[in-house]
């Protein structure tokens, strides 16, 4: 393991890769700040650039973009109350009131410090957890993998859209269906290509990710006549206030940060949960821990209320790399896009990544830590300048986002049919978003589709066509059991609510 860490260190500390971390954090911060454009779009926009890189550099860049995007999201949450990322919605609860009271600088400094600590604790836990899990995962069979992937998809559906689980599951199935377009990987026959040569290779994941995230998010802002840039111009032209945080304040928030780091990491490891849930959980937990006097401050500019979600979302981002790197199963939309990128570099994530590409494995973990340092020492002072870019008028920014999304996909395939397909998928994504179908499960289903089919084929072939593989091994049975519980949990809640409503009705 020490050898691996040293390999990772030497890979991560090459000038090229150090630059990647810096560029990634910077670009991520900028994209993450733009309301509507989240980390998935940020990463997707970066993929075409990284095609020529070696896998370690590519992943390092994207990990930097991921962190940067979350941090950028916090910045726009605090400054203009417009979270760029769902994971930073909870940040705005106390961050924006602080900014209104003239403490924007302090709020940003606390956000950066809390993110840094959360990310650091997360990276240390990842260092410990990932190799151990990778070791265990080597004994997994195809049935277990199938079960894990189905669990991942179900959990993402259950968590991304509470109350809309059916819609999220439908989106997942749509993603899986899109993944079957093209040449069948095992038999080599064409499926759903309608005789078109353009579809023989299937739909590229980059195309789908760009169309359903970057393009549709940019177009949704036009559709909803989003006028954020004026608010941004106002916020960024004003003074941010001092960035100093007093010693008492640090002492006050330190235990919050410690608790939220650990909570965030473990929530991040769970498939489907991720940064958004981690940040809300941490916020809720801290509010219930707080004294009666402190509780009143929550929502009105409490430093604890700001530190908790900021710490947790970064720790969760790190945690979400555990299933990606060790099992090859992404637990969130963002890590799903990263998985797609890794596969396109020719790297197969999973327990063998640890053995076959130790440089990639360790370099990513180490550069995550580097990314956190860079965010703290370089990005924080640059925030006032990056924020000024936010004031770039929407009518200039949107066509540029459209252009970079389209050309990014074109530069990979050199096929103009892809541009038409993107327009089609973007329109479909807009309609689905308006109908409240979440997009993250769709992209996750799409990316896992091939792997699910492959593992299903193996499991079915091994068990001679019988579905007994579902319960033959205790591990498989347990994972499927958890999947069913995840699906039933929302139902139980609905039934309980109905019953209590009925009881209340009878009592009254």
């Amino acid at each position: 393991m020490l050898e691996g860490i040293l390999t990772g260190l030497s890979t991560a500390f090459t000038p090229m890769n150090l630059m990647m971390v810096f560029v990634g954090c910077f670009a991520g911060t900028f994209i993450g700040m733009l309301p509507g454009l989240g980390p998935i779009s940020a990463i997707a926009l970066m993929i075409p650039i990284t095609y020529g890189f070696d896998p370690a550099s590519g992943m390092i860049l994207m990990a930097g973009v991921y962190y940067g995007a979350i941090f950028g999201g916090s910045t726009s949450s605090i400054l203009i109350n417009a979270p760029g990322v769902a994971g930073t919605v909870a940040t705005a609860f106390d961050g924006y009131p602080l900014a209104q009271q003239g403490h924007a600088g302090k709020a940003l400094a606390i956000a950066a410090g809390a993110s840094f600590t959360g990310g650091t604790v997360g990276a240390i836990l990842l260092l410990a957890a990932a190799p151990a899990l990778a070791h265990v995962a080597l004994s997994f069979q195809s049935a277990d993998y199938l079960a894990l992937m189905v669990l991942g998809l179900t959990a993402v559906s259950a968590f991304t859209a509470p109350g809309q689980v059916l819609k999220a599951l439908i989106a997942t199935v749509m993603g899986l269906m899109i993944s079957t377009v093209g040449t069948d990987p095992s038999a080599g026959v064409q499926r759903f290509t309608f005789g078109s040569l353009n579809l023989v290779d299937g739909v590229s994941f980059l195309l789908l990710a760009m169309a359903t995230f970057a393009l549709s998010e940019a177009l949704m802002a036009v559709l909803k006549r989003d006028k954020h840039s004026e608010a941004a111009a106002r916020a960024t032209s004003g003074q941010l206030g001092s960035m100093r945080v007093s010693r008492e304040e640090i002492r006050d928030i330190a235990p919050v940060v410690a608790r939220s780091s650990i909570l965030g990491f473990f929530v991040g490891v769970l498939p489907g949960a991720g940064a958004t849930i981690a940040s809300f959980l941490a916020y809720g937990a801290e509010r219930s821990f707080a004294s009666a006097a402190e509780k009143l401050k929550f929502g009105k500019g409490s430093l604890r209320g700001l530190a908790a979600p900021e710490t947790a979302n970064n720790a969760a981002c790190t945690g979400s790399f555990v299933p990606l790197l060790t099992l090859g199963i992404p637990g969130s939309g963002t890590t799903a896009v990263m998985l797609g990128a890794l596969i396109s570099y020719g790297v197969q994530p999973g327990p063998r990544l640890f053995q076959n590409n130790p440089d990639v494995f360790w370099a990513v973990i180490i550069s995550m830590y580097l990314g956190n340092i860079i965010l703290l020492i370089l990005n924080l002072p640059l925030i006032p300048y990056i924020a000024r870019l936010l004031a770039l008028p929407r009518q200039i920014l949107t066509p540029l986002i459209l252009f970079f999304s389209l050309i990014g996909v074109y530069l990979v395939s050199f096929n103009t049919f892809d541009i038409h397909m993107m327009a089609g998928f973007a329109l479909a994504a807009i309609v689905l978003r308006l109908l409240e179908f979440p997009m993250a499960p769709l992209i996750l289903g799409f990316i896992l589709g091939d792997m699910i089919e492959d593992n299903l084929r193996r499991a079915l072939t091994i068990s001679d066509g019988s579905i007994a593989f579902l319960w033959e091994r205790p591990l498989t049975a347990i994972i499927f059991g958890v999947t069913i519980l995840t699906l039933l949990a929302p139902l139980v809640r609905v039934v309980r609510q109905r019953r209590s409503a009925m009881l209340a009705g009878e009592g009254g």
Partner: protein
Amino acid sequence: MTLNRDLVAALGFLAFSIAYGWQATGIDMFPGQEGEAFTPQTFPLALAIVGGLLALGQTVKSLREPPLAGEAWASYDWPRVGLLLLSMVAYGATFTWLGFIVSTTLFLVAGYLILGERRPLVIGMASVVLTVAFWALMTKVLGLYLAPGELFRGWLW
């Protein structure tokens, strides 16, 4: 009566699943493969069934609890989004013929105009200059090939 959008979406997906499943039964197989435990049809057919069941579930759900009235779709800026989507289609259609520089410049200018930018200098800088800079970066620095334009073949080179 307001239209129950969730119901329409659910029925739409039901129809889609049925069409998908019907298409899946037509996927080619090698002779003798029909009896195997897993064929190229297995996974798509399974998906069609799961999709159909989910769509039915959503249909029942949206009949029992109609969604709260959301924002009116009519209030959205559909014309602009439609024009932007059309300009994307046109960009794809003209790319090979006009070449990267001309088609990209036109696409960006169209985008700025659609979104209400009217200052000629801004439009010019953010389209021509940007396109040429991007083209130079891609072709001269990174060595990528970008379509020069079939239309100009013969009289420009």
